[in-house]
């Protein structure tokens, strides 16, 4: 078995406590190890992506227990893609934090980053619904810590809302999981898929409730309307690099929706088109609300934050089609918008760090240091985010429009909101960067502790370069992503990889084990023995 699959979880899970244990007081070592860890994660993710694109879904049985009795990790194209995206973002963010000095403004930044990676990677890899909850919590709690990194009134108040909102989400998650388990008797996603497919009609009511509530949980993470409320204040008040990292957080929700509603509750199956019926209107309204927010926001951070909501809406419009083509387009747009949002948050942070007391308000302040370069990057980021050519946002939108042909209202929404976003970004950018030249007063004093601004710019530029690469190599990228979509819409490969022979092997292990422990006082365990003998009779209820 290929142990590398678990490495994206275990590596940060070891690194983080080691940083706490040995390097608590040594920022330099923390930085070295953090960057090394992130780099290793990138390398790992690349290797896993290569593996996933040549092999089918690969299964890693934790504790050597067969599914559904133990927890399995499953590596397929989609999870490999998410791992890669996460680690690239993580690396950029860590570099930026070091360059901007954010990491030294509070405790445990680097260990929390590693824990954050552990949580996100875990969520992307797991093949078990409850384990998904656990890793959601890991990534959430790490994100709480990162969000409030270095404190301050506004940040803490926004932090309270962020945490409380997500606590409500976690509660809903448990209600949903409980419902699903209570109907199906299993938590493994592949096993669930099998069982849901042959679910007796009498159970569909409750099952649908479980599926519907679960959708909402993911909608909370993805910040889909009406669950988007937590996002603007959180992203605006979080430290810049953290907000950039959070670009992937909404995608965790998106990932979960894509995964669960192609694998476990496929559209048109037992539960009908439940997912689409919920998702499509939510996505459209998110897109509208988000882009209106881009225009209506009075602070640059919020401009970007709302564009994240809008972009999630955009990609969900594609995913909610539940077709292979649209999913491919959605995946492309997801990769693009993650990088674009992260880049924009870093740029916004560059601005904030240099505008001193003026903060991010969309008002003219005398030109900041490196204004030209920052303005250029903002221009590029905004173009990408608004979906203007030539950057990947345009291509993504084009693909989504192409895949949703015939739904004219949807085209209208996408195109009109694009215009609103263009106007919004244009206003923000021209006020902050251009009107600045007309503003009176001295150049604002930048924050002192940027140890190496070059690194910060490199990290930001790197993300923009990523967007450019995504544009230039759109052909091969979409080919890969379309194959990913194809894999998602042939879930049998996933299910087979996890479940074929699993019950038989599991119960065979039981009988094999009886001999090796024959010397044990078995008489005190008579009830267990009873179960052992009669249970194998009905293992494969899902087949």
């Amino acid at each position, binding site marked *: 078995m290929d142990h590398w699959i678990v490495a994206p979880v275990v590596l940060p899970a070891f690194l983080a406590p080691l940083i706490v244990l040995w390097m608590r007081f040594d920022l330099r070592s923390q930085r070295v190890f953090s960057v090394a860890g992130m780099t290793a994660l990138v390398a790992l993710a690349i290797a896993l992506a290569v593996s996933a694109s040549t092999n089918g879904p690969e299964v890693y049985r934790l504790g050597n227990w067969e599914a559904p009795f133990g927890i399995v990790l499953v590596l397929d194209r989609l999870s490999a893609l998410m791992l890669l995206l996460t680690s690239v973002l993580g690396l950029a963010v860590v570099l930026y934090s070091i360059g901007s000095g954010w990491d030294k403004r509070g405790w445990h930044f680097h260990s929390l980053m590693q824990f954050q990676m552990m949580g996100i990677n875990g969520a992307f890899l797991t093949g078990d619904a409850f384990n998904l909850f656990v890793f959601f*919590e890991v990534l959430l*709690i790490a994100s709480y810590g990162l969000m*409030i990194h270095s404190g301050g009134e506004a940040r803490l108040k*926004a932090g309270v809302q962020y945490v409380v909102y997500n606590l409500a989400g976690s509660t809903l998650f448990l209600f949903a999981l*409980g419902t699903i388990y209570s109907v199906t008797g299993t938590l493994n996603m592949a096993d669930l898929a099998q069982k849901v497919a042959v679910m007796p009609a009498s159970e569909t009511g409750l099952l649908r409730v479980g599926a519907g509530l679960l959708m909402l949980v993911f909608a909370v993470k993805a910040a889909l309307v009406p669950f988007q409320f937590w996002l603007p204040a959180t992203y605006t008040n979080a430290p810049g690099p953290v907000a950039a990292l959070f670009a992937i957080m909404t995608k965790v929700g998106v990932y979960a929706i894509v995964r669960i509603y192609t694998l476990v509750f496929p559209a048109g199956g037992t539960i009908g088109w439940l997912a689409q019926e919920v998702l499509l209107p939510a996505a459209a309204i998110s897109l509208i609300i988000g882009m209106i927010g881009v225009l209506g926001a009075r*602070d640059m951070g919020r401009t970007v934050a709302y564009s994240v909501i809008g972009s999630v809406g955009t990609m969900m419009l594609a995913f909610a089609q539940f077709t292979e083509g649209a999913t491919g387009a959605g995946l492309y747009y997801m990769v693009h918008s993650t990088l674009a949002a992260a880049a924009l948050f870093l740029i916004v942070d560059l601005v904030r760090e240099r505008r001193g007391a003026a903060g991010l308000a969309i008002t003219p302040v005398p030109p900041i240091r490196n204004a030209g370069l920052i303005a250029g990057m903002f221009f590029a980021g905004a173009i990408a985010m608004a979906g203007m050519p030539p950057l990947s946002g345009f291509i993504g939108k084009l693909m989504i429009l192409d895949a949703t042909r015939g739904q004219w209202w949807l085209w209208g929404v996408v195109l009109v909101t694009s215009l609103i976003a263009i106007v919004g970004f244009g206003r923000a950018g021209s006020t902050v960067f251009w009107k600045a030249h007309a503003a009176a007063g001295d150049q604002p004093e930048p924050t002192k502790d940027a140890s190496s601004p070059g690194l910060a710019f490199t990290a930001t530029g790197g993300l923009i370069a990523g967007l450019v690469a995504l544009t230039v190599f759109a052909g091969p990228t979409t080919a890969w992503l379309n194959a990913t979509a194809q894999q998602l819409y042939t879930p049998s490969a996933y299910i087979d990889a996890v479940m074929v022979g699993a019950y038989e092997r599991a119960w065979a292990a039981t009988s094999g084990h009886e001999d090796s422990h024959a010397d044990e006082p078995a008489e*005190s365990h008579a*009830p267990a023995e009873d179960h052992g003998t009669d249970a194998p009779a009905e293992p494969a209820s899902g087949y």
Partner: protein
Amino acid sequence: MEALVASAVGIMTAAGIYLILRLRTFPVVLGMAMLSYAVNIFLFATGRLAVNLPPILGHAGAETAGYTDPIPQALVLTAIVISFGMTAVVVMLSLGAFIEAGDDRIDLGPEEKK
């Protein structure tokens, strides 16, 4: 018995929802606590109810009666621990916000009064 448990879960949920809709952090935290009780019992009850059949081998009251479903229990244990960690963080966070802001309102004000 099922009716008692279900109604208790429902009432605790209702109490929790009411409290999280308040305007100060403290009642909201209390509401979260109520909700987590409710969800824990909910999750636990998804394994169906059983009296004196703890999933401890060889300790069942009547050996033929079997055991109650251990999976939800394990899940609830995990959930309890996680929600404890979360509660600790949210309590500390709301305290920090209170100290910084001088009040414990949970609202931010329109776009944080900007």
